[in-house]
């Protein structure tokens, strides 16, 4: 799994590629918590290149989501692949978080 972060306009865009499972999800969590610690608060997480997510991934996302919210920030997700969208949908994360079709829509509507 690869996790990268970059500033774009007033947003902080996190891209995640590969597989977010019990072994890799902690990396996502650690990176995001560092960015939150550095003062980033308007997160868009682009999952275009993420092919797989298990409950360990959902767990990390919820940890990060709670921290962002507690710090007064926002977090939304974009470009979910079919497998990831399925997991978001049945776990209720699809309604708990704001989801955008693509990064451009997320940037325009966040």
């Amino acid at each position, binding site marked *: 799994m690869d996790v990268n972060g970059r500033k774009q306009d007033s947003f902080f865009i996190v891209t995640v590629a590969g597989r977010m*499972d*019990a*072994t890799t999800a902690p990396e996502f969590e650690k990176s995001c918590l560092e960015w939150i610690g550095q003062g980033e608060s308007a997160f868009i997480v682009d999952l275009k290149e993420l092919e*797989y997510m*298990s*409950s*360990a991934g*959902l*767990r990390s996302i*919820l*940890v990060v*989501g*709670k921290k962002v*919210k507690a710090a007064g920030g926002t977090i939304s997700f974009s470009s979910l692949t079919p*497998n990831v969208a399925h*997991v978001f949908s*049945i*776990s*209720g994360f699809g*309604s*708990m*978080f704001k989801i955008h079709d693509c990064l451009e829509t997320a940037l325009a509507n966040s």
Partner: protein
Amino acid sequence: MVTLRLPARMDSFGPLRSFVAEEMEREEGLLELIPMAELVLEEILVNVIHYAYPDREGEIEVACEILSSEKFRLTVKDWGRPFNPLERADPDLTLDIDSREIGGVGIFLVKQMTSDLTYQYLNGANVLTAWFEKRQPPPGHS
């Protein structure tokens, strides 16, 4: 039926995942079920590591059987503490981000991804059996 027995550790997930996927790839009708079977396998492995063998390392055995061109059975066995994951309460999906508890989603995903799911404690082993079936398109769709 083919089986693979490995140490119940997270680094066994890769080999177990390949083992299951290779078996499923033998039937075209099962290809679309592979991501769900992988997820179910991971969730069960994580549970076995945490609950069946909380204080020692044990083994996990995965058995696969193609039942038809569109139906597949995955059986996961361990010899740890008796533990029925199906008794775990489902998470409340209606809660917002503040109220939602962290964790507790794994077995719920397993239930949702399988067409049938059973637990047995047999001859000193936890045996979880999961069936995967290709969903028929709704009437009126081809």
